């Protein structure tokens, strides 16, 4: 097998990913829209993508000077100019965490006031993710050092940092498929066996232990379901894409941006093929030096974020911020050109939240978090500045409602931003 095919460069991979996606899933095999009852309503968003930048965005460069619709595009958002009417930029919003210590509190980005509670994406996945092959997918570009997603028990979820792993998960490579199916199928009997094991065990244990074992039973049942879904469905075509798996994994720390682009490409494909409807992407904060458009930056990303207000470092940091936005803009291009079963651009029914848990990495401050929300059929085009008592959670409430989930609160937030966004 050709391990390192020199001709399949990342560019090539990208190209195929962007343009030549063949038959994702047959239209007819697409599950009916999730979310239950009136989910087909045109006003409901069906998918959620969240990205979180570990080092945040330099606020002075991402916040427009003016609020409202007529703002002048700030440097970091330039790449998003072409999507201007499809996104809203929020300033001044945060979760008012009880402590603000930079790194640890970063993790409240999707969880709200405290970090040990269910994150927005998981809340959504539980409601709208059950019909797809993967209820949710957690991805990272760069080292995933800090958890961004938490389950209903507040337990952090792992992330996939290798595009090849994600690729295999989404579009199992044919030669691996056979063995994969064998492992999954025989694994089914392994699951039956240990279920029996656990049952025997639970007969002889205390009440408290039985509750602990319930965790095991619950997990086991869910895994059984997931394993079923992962198995090659008999007589059905797996989503196939006309592209090769990445010839290498950009896990080297200097390749974080590259990993980010690949992950966005794969996410677009996964959304199109309806492999999952809830995805998150963590953007790491690596120490290595990036090369952006052929120009090598003068210091590592992490070091740039501790710029100490040195204008030169800030300028370099903003270059990275702009690059994140360029990747995002290209992702949005794809969501506009790819369509759902009804022939509508995916972006119309996909909510994209791009934010961070840190407001100022230089000062390790977790307040005033730059946040961008895109698509999903919301009313966009503005720069919205937080009023005195508004919380980032207010925005999340609106996102939940837009996704057809009944919610009046999120963590410490009890209001919403419907007035602005609907």
């Amino acid at each position, binding site marked *: *097998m*050709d*391990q*390192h095919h*020199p001709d399949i460069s990342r560019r090539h991979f990208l190209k195929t990913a962007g343009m030549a996606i063949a038959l994702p899933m047959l239209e007819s095999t697409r599950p009916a829209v999730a979310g239950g009852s009136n989910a087909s309503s045109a006003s409901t968003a069906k998918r959620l993508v969240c990205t979180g930048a570990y080092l945040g965005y330099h606020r002075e460069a991402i916040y427009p000077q003016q609020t409202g619709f007529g703002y002048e595009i700030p440097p970091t958002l330039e790449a998003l100019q072409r999507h201007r009417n499809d996104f809203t930029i929020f300033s001044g919003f945060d979760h008012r965490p009880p402590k*603000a210590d930079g*790194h640890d509190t970063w993790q409240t980005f999707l969880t709200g006031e405290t970090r040990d509670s269910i994150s927005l994406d998981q809340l959504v996945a539980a409601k709208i993710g059950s019909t797809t092959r993967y209820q949710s997918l957690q991805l990272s570009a760069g080292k*995933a050092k800090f*958890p961004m997603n938490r389950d209903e028990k*507040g*337990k952090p*979820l*792992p992330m*996939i940092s290798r595009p090849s792993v994600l690729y295999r998960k989404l579009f199992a490579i044919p030669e691996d498929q056979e063995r994969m199916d064998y492992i999954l199928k*025989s*694994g089914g*009997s392994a*699951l039956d*066996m240990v279920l029996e*094991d*656990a049952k025997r*065990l639970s007969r*002889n*244990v*205390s009440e*408290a232990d039985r509750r*602990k074992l319930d*965790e*095991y039973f*619950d*997990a086991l049942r*869910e*895994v059984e379901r*997931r*394993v079923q879904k992962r198995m090659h469905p008999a007589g059905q075509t797996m989503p196939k894409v006309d592209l090769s798996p990445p*010839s*290498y*994994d*950009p*896990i*080297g*720390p*200097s*390749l974080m941006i590259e990993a980010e682009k690949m992950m966005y490409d794969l996410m677009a494909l996964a959304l199109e093929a309806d492999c999952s409807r809830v995805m998150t992407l963590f953007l790491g904060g690596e*120490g*290595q*030096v990036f090369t952006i458009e*052929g120009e*090598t930056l*003068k*210091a590592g990303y*992490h*070091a740039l974020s*501790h710029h*100490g207000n*040195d*204008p*030169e*470092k800030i300028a370099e940091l903003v270059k990275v911020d702009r690059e994140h936005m360029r990747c995002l803009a290209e992702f949005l291009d794809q969501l506009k050109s790819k369509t759902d079963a009804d022939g509508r651009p995916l972006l119309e029914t996909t909510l994209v939240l791009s934010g961070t848990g840190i407001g100022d990495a230089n000062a*390790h401050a977790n307040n005033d978090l730059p946040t961008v929300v895109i698509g999903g059929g919301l009313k966009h085009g503005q720069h919205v500045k937080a009023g005195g008592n508004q919380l980032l959670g207010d925005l999340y409430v609106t996102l939940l409602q837009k996704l057809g989930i009944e919610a009046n609160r999120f963590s410490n937030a009890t209001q919403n931003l419907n007035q602005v966004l609907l």
Partner: protein
Amino acid sequence: MSFRRAGITWALFSLAAPLAAAPLPFFENYCIECHDADSAKGGFDLEALKGADWGVEKNSDQWERVLKRVRDGEMPPAKEENQPSAEERTAATAELHRSLMEKATAGGGMLQRLSRNEYRESIVSLLGIDFELPDEFPPDTVAHGFDNSASGLVLSPTLMEAYFDAATLAADGLFPPASRPVEPARVVVAPGDFTFAETAGRVVGDAIRMVVRTPQIADSCIWPAKFETRIPGKYKLRINASRFVRGLLANSSFDEPMKCRVYAQPVDQEEGQSIAKMRKLTEFTVASDDPETFKMEVELHRTEAPVLYFANALISRPTDRPPDDHLKTPTIETVIREMLTRDKRLFAVWKDAKIDGGLQRGSAWTNLKKLRDAPDLNVEAVNHSKEEIETVVQRMVKEIGFVDPVLIFQFYEEGAALQIHSMEIIGPFEVTESKQEKKRREELVPRFMAAAPTGAAPEEKVRPILKSFLSKAFRRPATDADLDRFSTMVMDQMKSGHSLEEGLHLAIRTALISPRFLYRGHHAGRLDDWDLASRLAYFLTGAPPDDQLNAAAAAGKLSDHAQLTAEANRLMDSEAIDRFVTSFTGQWLGVRSLEDITPDPRLIVWQNGHRKGMVGEAERFFNEILRTNRTLETFIKPDFTWGNERLLNEIYGQKVAIPNWGFARIEVPDGAQFGGLLGQAGVLMATSNGNQTQPVVRGVWVLHNILGDPPPPPPPGIPAIDPDTRGTKTVRELLAAHTRDAKCASCHRKIDPIGMALENYDPLGRWRTHYPEWTQDEKGQPVRTDGALIDPQGEFPGGVPFKNIEDLRAYVLNNIDQFGQCLSEKLLTYAMGRRPTYAERDEIKHLVQAHVARSKDGAGFRDLLLDLLPSEGFRTR
């Protein structure tokens, strides 16, 4: 509120739930007025607690708080007129103690899932394979300060799925899937396709230039970012390289060939490692200034990439000598001296340069160069004498951390640099049998199958193999029922056309997701020999019991105290104890969190070596006290410590030379500011945020981890006080807010004096006498001057004055049983996977008191640890 009303409420209540155990009249007289359900002052509702189940940890904890408050005279508050007599206090305390002993008895643990590390070690021990969990494997949650606490170790579907997949990976390690034929491929690595840190390389034109040698891989090595060996085997490398020596005045001396070393390193490994950790492949010398192609054949293992290192680069740190430094390259001091001697203009600009943090900016070299090349630089007026040069050289060497970034940029532009124009990796040509594969075939598989009778038919082998495997996997003998079920499963596989190996592969996959593998402690109450063996083994080695311990359990020997002690001593003398030391100190002392802290660059040019020095100190220090049975006092006031050059010289201000950038043990002189847990840089940094000290966090840490008197969490809705270093307020003024508010004061009168006594240590644990004040010079570079004087004084409750850190140390030494008790509780929390109950802590208290009494006869920490093993707690789930 009226007494009458309170009285009525209470009376009704006590009727409803008559608990003779609680000292009712005492509460009624002194407490209920403020702590009834309506007022619940300080968020504390005695009425609700009264009816709650004492057996629940949360409630017994609350009662214990009540006990402490009453005992220590903290409640009722002094401002209340109605105060109990001393006798009333004693009686109430005694009654509460009796009830707690009765209700919060030993035991009460639950099924304990293996932690991530324990899980990995269990698989390694069970199958013998090298096994690493994939990056995507879920992390554990910390509870009670440790990642192995049963209550934190929940099981989610995501984790179960990860176990399911990891089990396949583990089974593949013993019985891998059939391999497929491979064709060699060719990968071309362009200069821009390397991974490199700022100091390790820079792309200029058609080449990447390297100018540094330091022992850190990330600081000085480059490797292809987009290559990773997927199939181990022989590969051909073609490296196109040249020397770049522009012949400028300063560096014309580099006339020898440049040595390029080639190492192999897994691409997904931490790149903060030292070069010595990498596998050296080969070395070649570059003698020409024109590109030349070097060909070599190397063997690459799975996930490895070839790594390049400029072995005789001129720039190196004086404290970081690279490995086997046989190349006799000049030290950085010599290099600087030669440069300044040879280039008078460069000397002139360095002479006037301010050597401080401002030089770390990328623009520093550009500025210096501009000055050097300015036509109006008056070179004639400069005194270029040997003595003058030496002065400048010494200034530069002293602040080499600030100087070398400038030199690096200079060398990138002007040489001497090693240039790599391209690298080709072609292969694999011969798929080699890796060491792991050979081990698997010759050692691991035979061992796994050893129980099977030789020459038997495959079907007859199944049961004996499973018996040995499952007993080890489940950490107690496999029952016949187990064997029946697992054998049937394997046989069914074989009947449907699969091999014995495939059947066993499935059996492994099944066992590794069984609750009997994933959980330990299946029986409540007293541990039997098998569970005791597991508890001891996971405690001291982070792994399942080894063969000898299993044999002891099988022989029923562990219930005997002497035998258990003997086994514990054996494990403590083995290498496996290192896993305990790393895990326990990493969590108890918090040094595990150092990885997540990046200090303010104005404070230090932070290197991985600093962190490693801090972690290494904590581990080696603890390890020595344990192994050599030093007294508990040694933790606080030791006569020795350990460190590397980065730690000892740059943080502690010592002057030691340690060969091969290793670790050394040094004596801590009397009166030294460093040394001991309260002066250890790792602890002090872990309790700061890398930018500023956090006196409250440090105070809380000491109460939690040294004095064992943890304050309750701050009441909800109270914002933390953020240190404001803009100089508007002093830390002391900020903290004064705590004592003004009674709600805060009850805890902060304990917390803050400790935090203040530690203020003489900066965020990195360096001694300081003043707060820094940062201003900017005309170029906008930060300048540090001494700001306010540190004022470490304070008064600890009970009227104990702390003048400085010495007094805090003295306080702990005077209360060494309190420290001993705290440490013992931490050890048992770690060992049992749960926090000791009230009764268990009471037992610990007595054990520690007895221990301290014996310490005059030389009883040490190791004795204390052994004393804990026969305790009720350790022997009860």
